[in-house]
């Protein structure tokens, strides 16, 4: 069921340069868990599009399958959207983009969607430098199927069933960089101050722009919290069915300074160490980016900010040299060589 948001929530909002209020960028009421990081990212997307004065119908939004992939229902309700199949958002977006170069393409995905089943398509859409913004709402687990580890789960982390993840985690941002992505960023769902500008930059980037957004799953990252006050309830849950009771949680938000590590305590009591890049650093030096990311990884920091940018990138349309007109606007006259040409072809076949 999709619930329509009561419209009285925004009585008289300011309009942006193209005449839309912020409400015009919102979507249906979210059905995600209370406090889910993904909802914060949706809100940042709404804000970014509003601030960029993008007409909502000029955006086409895409996703795979997962809690994260449901979010396109919850933002940009005036945009067309396509909830594809699990892990295959990149291919559908590629086709859509080639059909009409004039729209803005926004894909959202989960870490399960992109780092497991969709890893091949993720790598290949990067290789093609499709002009799109690709946001992974990265919670290190499979939210919608109830909390299994994903391929981005940290080695050593404990999942919902109490099992330690014993596999190397895949760093999608580092992978994107290795594969030649022209825009690579990382942020945290609760840090709108950082996230909104990054989304704006990504939407404006004329090639493939990747943002890895750490987005805690309040429900299934919520397992180790023996120090927490709702201990009693947790015990209760453990004794019955682990998936049956989902306590409402507050969203985790964060503001911190560049170049100083910030500790974030998740709902389960585990700690993430964020380390924000100074906005003044030069993100266009690929080697430097690789080095910094490797270093942060070794130190157990999560480096956030715009990690790498190749400003003069050339997207897939340029590579393929497609005509300036969107392909989906071409008509019989542009497309069909006609009967005379066919007669000639026939003649060549005799």
């Amino acid at each position, binding site marked *: *069921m*999709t619930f329509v948001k009561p419209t009285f929530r925004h009585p008289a909002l300011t309009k942006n340069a193209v005449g839309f209020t912020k409400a*015009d960028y919102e979507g249906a009421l979210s059905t995600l868990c209370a406090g889910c990081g993904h909802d914060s990212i949706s809100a940042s997307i709404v804000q970014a599009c509003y601030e960029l004065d993008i*007409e*909502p*119908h*000029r955006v*086409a939004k*895409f996703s795979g399958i997962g809690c994260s992939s449901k979010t396109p*229902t919850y933002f940009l*309700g*005036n*945009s*067309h*959207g*396509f*909830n*594809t*199949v699990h892990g*295959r958002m*990149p*291919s*559908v*977006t*590629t*086709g*859509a*983009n*080639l*059909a*009409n170069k004039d*729209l803005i393409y926004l894909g959202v995905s989960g870490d399960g969607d992109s780092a497991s089943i969709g890893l*091949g*398509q993720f*790598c*290949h859409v990067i290789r*093609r430098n499709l002009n799109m913004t690709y946001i992974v709402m990265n919670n290190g687990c499979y939210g919608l199927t109830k909390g299994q580890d994903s391929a981005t789960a940290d080695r050593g982390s404990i999942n919902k069933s109490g099992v330690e993840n014993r596999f190397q985690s895949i760093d999608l941002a580092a992978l994107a960089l290795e594969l030649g992505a022209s825009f690579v960023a990382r942020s945290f769902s609760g840090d709108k101050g950082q996230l909104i500008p990054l989304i704006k930059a990504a939407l404006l980037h004329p090639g493939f722009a990747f943002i890895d957004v750490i987005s805690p799953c309040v429900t299934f990252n919520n397992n180790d919290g023996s120090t927490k006050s709702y201990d009693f309830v947790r015990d209760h849950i453990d004794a019955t069915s682990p998936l049956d009771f989902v306590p409402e949680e507050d969203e985790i938000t964060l503001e911190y300074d560049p170049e100083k590590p910030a500790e974030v305590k998740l709902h389960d009591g585990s700690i993430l160490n964020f380390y924000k890049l100074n906005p003044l650093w030069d993100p266009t030096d690929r080697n430097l980016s690789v080095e910094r990311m490797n270093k942060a990884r070794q130190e157990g920091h999560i480096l956030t900010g715009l990690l790498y940018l190749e400003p003069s990138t050339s997207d*897939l*349309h340029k590579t*393929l*040299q*497609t*005509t*300036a007109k969107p*392909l*989906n606007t*071409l008509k*019989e006259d542009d*497309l*069909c*060589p*006609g*009967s005379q*040409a*066919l*007669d000639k*072809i*026939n003649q060549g*076949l*005799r």
Partner: protein
Amino acid sequence: MSKPVRVNDMVIRFANVNGTGSASANDLFSKAVFRMGIPLSSKNFFPSNIQGLPTWYEVRVSEKGYTGRRNGVDLLVAVNPQTYAKDIATVVPGGYFLYDSTKNLHPELIRKDINYIGIPMMKLCMENYDIPRQQQLFKNIVYIGALATLLDVEMEVIRDIIRQMFAKKEKLIPPNFKALDLGANYVKENFSWPLEIRLERRDALGDQIFMDGNSAASLGALYGGVTFAAWYPITPSTSVISAFEKYCKKYRTNPDGTTNYAIVQAEDELAAIGMVIGASWNGARAFTSTSGAGISLMTEFLGLAYFAEVPAVIVNVQRGGPSTGMPTRTQQSDIISCAYASHGDTKQVLLFPSTPAECFEMTAQALDLAERLQTPVLVMTDLDLGMNLHLSPALKWDDNRKYDRGKVLNRQQLEEAKQFGRYLDVDGDGICYRTLPGTHPTKGSFFTRGTSRDEFARYTEEGEAYVRNMQRLQKKWKTAADLVPAPEVTRTGTSKLGVIYFGTTKFSADEALDMLAEEGMKFDVLRIKAFPFGGDVHKFIKDHEQVVVIEQNRDAQMRTVLMTELEIDPAKLISVVNYDGMPIAADTIYDQIKKRLSPIAVKA
């Protein structure tokens, strides 16, 4: 042995090694027969590797216009000693075995009932060309020269073809002519010629062309307005896209070098069909082509496109299955897997071309149907049709023809519409109106998904809304049956017995039916052109007591689908199948029909 002279009626088979340049030489021979106005077909049986393995090329020449296969070889051009023994066994008694006599034949290879024609091909080449690569290459032309002389092919016709072939590289013409003469002269000096099987100019072809189905399908895509193709290489479908690319370069490149098309070689078939769905959803005409495993990999996405109602065109050039199977052999064995592709209750629209002209027409038509019906349409061709040269009616295009873009609301229509519901059945035909992204700032946007939803594209898990939607899809399926090409019914009204076939089976089947008719066994014939079947197919089966269904797969898949969709008593449907990977032969059909039909039925 002395037999009466047989004119324009023979099977010639070339036994070569692949990668030696034989295929184009053999094409040269076929083309010459074609230019002499004689009906023929040619088939290439090649291995699944690149170089060094046995390969065969079979030309059927038939004054009567039978262009399917028939068993038995009248003349075998044997250039591959590896397969001599096997090849000799295929020659009919009284037939000819033309071989490279540079080396002697092993005595065990001598059959008393056939004629041997030794041409020292390699020797002639070594004496006349210095470079080993050239020696190898011109060996092929030498045997063409010999063969042409033996069969009375007009040498000037061959020379013309060579001239055209090398029009842009004239220096290559004389050495080719020389090779031709080497073969021809050797025959003239050493044998009596022409043979008792021989060719004679006719004017039996009208404006027909000689073409492979894959190129024709690619032209269908070009004329049908495809602007986006995504694909992943796989034999035997690869040449659909490479031909499409070639034609696009020629006909769709703008003066400034930009292109009115985009082609993406995807990372696999899942991505290829995903891209096609994305482009079609966004209002471009898009298609892909695949074979074998590619179809299996597209299964999930085909279910999405069926259920979310997104157009998509897939040219499936069927090959020998299951699994990797026989990748360079032909079959019609993806009927069930395509008709019901994907988990859950799904049905997919299929078209079945029989000729290159239909590959062209049906691919163009598939684009109309996919957009009209908002659903995938699969053009079910096969390796035989796709990769071999066939006689075909000329390709035709009506310059007044408009693409049917289906029910798409534009900005103004949205402006005027009272309400918009993506899955509202406004017209009662099961087909709803869609909109394209970017059309209108505030109206007509919707969310496409593979999950259940209501008429306004809103997610719902309510059983009733789901059932309404599934029933509407059934209604759309009925509409589809009226829109797809109707079957072709021939030889009507003569018999209580019917025959149903489709695709490339047509050619051998027609011949077999003539053979049976000569014996007094008459059949009415229906050629299926599309799935869903529509009323004509049903009526045909109802109107006949027994119906033979001929197809090229083991499990009688078309017969299954006929039973299922039309509620036919299986007792009525007699199955004739051939699935050894070779195009079905007329004799096979003839034999099987005689064997299968109960004596009573046969008398009827």
